[in-house]
């Protein structure tokens, strides 16, 4: 068996594949749709028919080996794709990849089929009198843009809805958000809204960043694991490699779920809770933890604010009340709490079972509080390992493909827009002028949260007077995400029928194109998958992985960034959209997009991951340790695989990436960090900066507020900046200084850009929520 393929190896195929050359392939697929696909399903009889139409790629045709990443979940498994004469003939799970080490689930193992083009949309189409009609790309772009401009003219920019996708690469996600900004709307969103938005809100409110704090690999080091509403055996199968390794090393596995899942079948303790009772369950555990004095007192004193209020709240959740509401008996609650207390560090994993509730954000905060009480944060083997779903839902979230923020969680305030306008090198007033200038129910469209993708249909159906925008949604782009994900299916159907125009941009037609009873006004534009283009993708653990292009676009499909550019041309803002991005023909250059976001994403540290560094990591999968994700040697020596954000500073500063968030036992320059301020540095007159806790090697002991030009001057560090950096940093803070000088100097002094803050666990949920509504995600944005 070939255990570790290197891409430079060229080998001869041992047996014949069903390989066709690209030209013949396209022709036959166009003629006999389903022929090839059916061959896979129906076996040899049909197979022979497919062969009859075509010729084989000669078996000894040289093989090109491409490195790509599975596009079916955020575990991010590495794949070696074999291509012969332009046809994807074979694939292998990468045995030398630090995430999957040769593992794949059914979805990953079937990727090559995507390259066969079965069931794909092959050319642009529109619905005419209830029949699908083939049209040219030119016609499609002309008609779609005319319809959008008409709606804009009549109802304003907010009447066009831009549904985006977690299947975009980072570059496409960023460009799509920018595209919506140039169009002049915040009615742009994607599936992060409907999977982990409550995590992002809840976790960020507790300790600053809404993301997986450790990594799936790090679960090998956990002593206990509690899964709440998470079923990795089915949803993140290859994560089980690491989970079961941890279990073999002695970790206790607890599964909390209304359903006895496949993951439950592997656990030490299965706990059935009634759906929607996560908070009483967690408080029930805390009741036993506090009752027995199992909390991590030292950690709490140094780094946690507000725990006494939690202790008070726990008093209501007596074992009897928990049994009544949740359905778990006292004995099992005690046993579970003890298991967690006796087996530290432990990690908490939650997924949709915790997030998709009308109280989802409060659920996610409760899980965080459990980890704080146990002292499981900022340590190897601990953390909140929140598994993301789609392959790039983490990246698309980070790049603000959301209705409530710009890329990097900067928010939507004027200062946030000004920051990005500086990055884009565009006049702020021009961007502002693209938006509806009115005020609706007290909200200004440019600065107010758009319609969430979970409720785009309410944007269509709701009484106009009740909407905080000028008019209803009248046209929507379903770009890489369909409408199966929205609840209340009857309303979804009705909304699809009511809109002027429905545009689907996708490799597959999706249900959005057919659910409504329409005879006209539906367009389908064929899109490439991620195997027909290239770029970066962020895995669940914040590692950023580069994908090769495996095959050329199939049929008439176009990569998403090209379709955006073609529409931008018609909308008249292609020059602004790509001011510093090279455009080849009509395709914006991916690497230039990466470099552009590197220049603006200071908040979360997406600044150090240049295309060159990411490609170098991609070429050296095998050099990274499966245990630590760090490279002990080789070209990436000392760096963490995929430079997980935050990767502070410019690429030249060579930050190694941060595998585990908030660990203070490492220098910041080496992947350490602290917590971020979201509520200021004081609450009710009490200092909430950390006390006696600081990153290793820090010149400032104790907590400190955020770095600004003024703070550098006060500290006497201003002259550490170069003259150019001084010019850029004047009047700025670390998040808005485009030179990266403030960041560089702070890190040189061992300081964290994240503020040395205590975890804030309880202000009373209602106050937290009201703060969140004002400005979700990063609370203290650009000023």
């Amino acid at each position, binding site marked *: 068996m070939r255990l570790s393929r290197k891409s430079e190896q060229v080998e001869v195929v041992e047996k014949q594949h069903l390989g066709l050359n690209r030209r013949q392939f396209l022709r036959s697929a166009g003629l006999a749709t389903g022929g090839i696909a059916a061959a896979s399903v129906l076996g040899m009889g049909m197979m022979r028919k497919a062969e009859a139409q075509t010729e084989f790629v000669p078996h000894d045709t040289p093989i090109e080996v491409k490195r790509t990443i599975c596009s079916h979940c955020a575990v991010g498994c590495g794949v070696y794709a074999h291509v012969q004469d332009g046809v994807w003939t074979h694939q292998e799970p990468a045995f030398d990849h630090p995430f999957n080490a040769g593992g794949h689930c059914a979805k990953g193992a079937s990727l090559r089929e995507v390259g066969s083009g079965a069931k794909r949309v092959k050319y642009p189409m529109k619905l005419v009198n209830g029949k699908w009609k083939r049209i040219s790309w030119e016609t499609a772009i002309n008609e779609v843009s005319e319809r959008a401009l008409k709606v804009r003219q009549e109802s304003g920019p907010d009447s066009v809805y831009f549904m985006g996708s977690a299947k975009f690469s980072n570059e496409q996600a960023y460009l799509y958000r920018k595209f919506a900004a140039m169009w002049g709307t915040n009615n742009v969103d994607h599936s992060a809204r409907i999977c982990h*938005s409550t995590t992002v809100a809840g976790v960020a409110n507790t300790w600053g960043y809404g993301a997986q704090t450790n990594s799936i690999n790090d679960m090998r080091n956990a002593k206990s694991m509690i899964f709440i509403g998470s079923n990795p055996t089915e949803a993140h199968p290859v994560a089980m490699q690491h989970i079961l390794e941890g279990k073999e090393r002695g970790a206790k596995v607890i599964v909390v779920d209304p359903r006895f899942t496949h993951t439950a079948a592997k656990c030490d303790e299965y706990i059935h809770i009634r759906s929607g009772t996560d908070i009483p369950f967690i408080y029930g555990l805390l009741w036993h933890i506090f009752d027995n004095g199992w909390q991590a007192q030292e950690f709490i004193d140094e780094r946690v604010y507000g725990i006494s209020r939690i202790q008070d709240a726990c008093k209501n959740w007596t074992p009897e009340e928990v049994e009544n509401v949740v359905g778990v008996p006292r004995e099992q609650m005690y046993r579970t709490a003890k298991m967690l207390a006796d087996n530290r560090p432990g990690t908490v994993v939650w997924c949709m079972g915790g997030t998709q509730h009308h109280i989802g954000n409060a659920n996610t905060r409760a899980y965080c509080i459990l980890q704080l009480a146990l002292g499981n944060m900022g340590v190897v083997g601990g953390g909140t390992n929140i598994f993301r779903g789609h392959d790039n839902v983490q990246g698309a979230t980070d790049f603000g493909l959301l209705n409530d923020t710009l890329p990097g969680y900067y928010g939507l305030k004027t200062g946030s827009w000004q920051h990005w306008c500086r990055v884009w090198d565009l006049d702020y007033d021009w961007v502002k002028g693209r938006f509806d200038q009115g005020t609706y129910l007290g909200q200004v469209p440019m600065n107010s949260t758009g319609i969430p993708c979970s409720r785009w249909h309410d944007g269509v159906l709701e009484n106009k007077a009740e909407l905080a925008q000028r008019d209803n949604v009248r046209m929507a782009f379903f770009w890489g995400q369909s409408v199966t994900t929205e609840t209340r299916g009857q309303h979804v159907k009705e909304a699809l029928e009511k809109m002027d125009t429905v545009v689907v941009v996708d490799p597959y037609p999706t249900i959005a194109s057919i659910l409504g009873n329409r005879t006209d006004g539906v367009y389908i534009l064929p899109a490439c998958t991620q195997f027909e283009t290239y770029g970066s993708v962020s895995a669940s653990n914040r590692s950023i992985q580069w994908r090769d292009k495996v095959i050329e676009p199939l049929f008439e499909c176009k990569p998403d960034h090209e379709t955006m550019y073609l529409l931008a041309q018609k909308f008249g803002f292609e020059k602004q959209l790509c001011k510093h991005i090279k455009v080849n023909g009509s395709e914006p250059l991916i690497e230039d997009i990466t470099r552009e976001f590197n220049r603006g994403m200071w908040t979360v540290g997406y600044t150090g991951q240049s295309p060159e560094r990411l490609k170098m990591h991609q070429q050296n999968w095998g050099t990274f340790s499966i245990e630590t994700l760090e490279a002990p040697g080789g070209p990436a020596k000392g760096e963490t695989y995929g430079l997980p954000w935050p990767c502070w500073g410019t690429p030249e500063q060579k930050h190694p990436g941060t595998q585990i968030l908030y660990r203070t036992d490492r220098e910041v320059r080496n992947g350490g960090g602290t917590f971020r301020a979201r509520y200021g540095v004081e609450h009710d007159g009490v200092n909430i900066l950390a006390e006696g806790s600081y990153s290793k090697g820090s010149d400032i002991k104790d907590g400190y507020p955020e770095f600004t030009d003024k703070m550098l001057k006060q500290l006497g560090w201003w002259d550490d900046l170069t003259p150019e950096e001084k010019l850029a940093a004047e009047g700025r803070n670390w998040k808005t200084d485009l030179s990266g000088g403030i960041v560089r100097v702070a890190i040189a002094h061992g300081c964290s850009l994240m503020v040395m803050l205590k975890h804030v666990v309880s202000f009373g949920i209602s106050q937290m929520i009201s703060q969140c509504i004002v400005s979700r995600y990063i609370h203290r944005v650009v000023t």
Partner: protein
Amino acid sequence: MHREPLYTPRRDLVAKYPTYQDRRVARLPTLYWSIQKEDYAKDFPVILTTGRIVEYEGGGEETRSNAWLAQLAREMYIEINPADAADRGIRNGDKVEVLSPTGAKVFVKAMVTPRVAVGESFMPFHFAGVFEGKSLGPKYPEGTEPFVIGEAANTAMTYGYDVVTQIQETKATLCQIKKA
């Protein structure tokens, strides 16, 4: 701090753990109490939750169009406890009707299994292409109908949105299940 689901089977807990008052979130009016105050539990006594299966991803449009995966998971279903099934005269593999408090009806196969507790049920969310019993297959552009289509779980899922982020409630609602 606990709030009962909008569609809760535990009416006795609503007074003590009520949801929020209706309010505006983002640009939209958003309902909470005006839904929870109605008692749906009498007519829709079974808790319904949704989730993933290993073969498919998300709405399943891509993975149900993949022959290798489609072969492994061919039919939409609902998991129902043997006790609930017996009470309703439902056997494993029977066609059943899942009725939602919204008035929606979906037609799926019953998987009778103790994996779900008594009074609880589960549907995977990756299916689409059948709407309230009617196949949409012929409406797909030629040659693009996925290998597998089925009722979408979300057709039956109900109102409910997180007060901060507007995530949709897909994990705790109610339904009734009948033999079709």
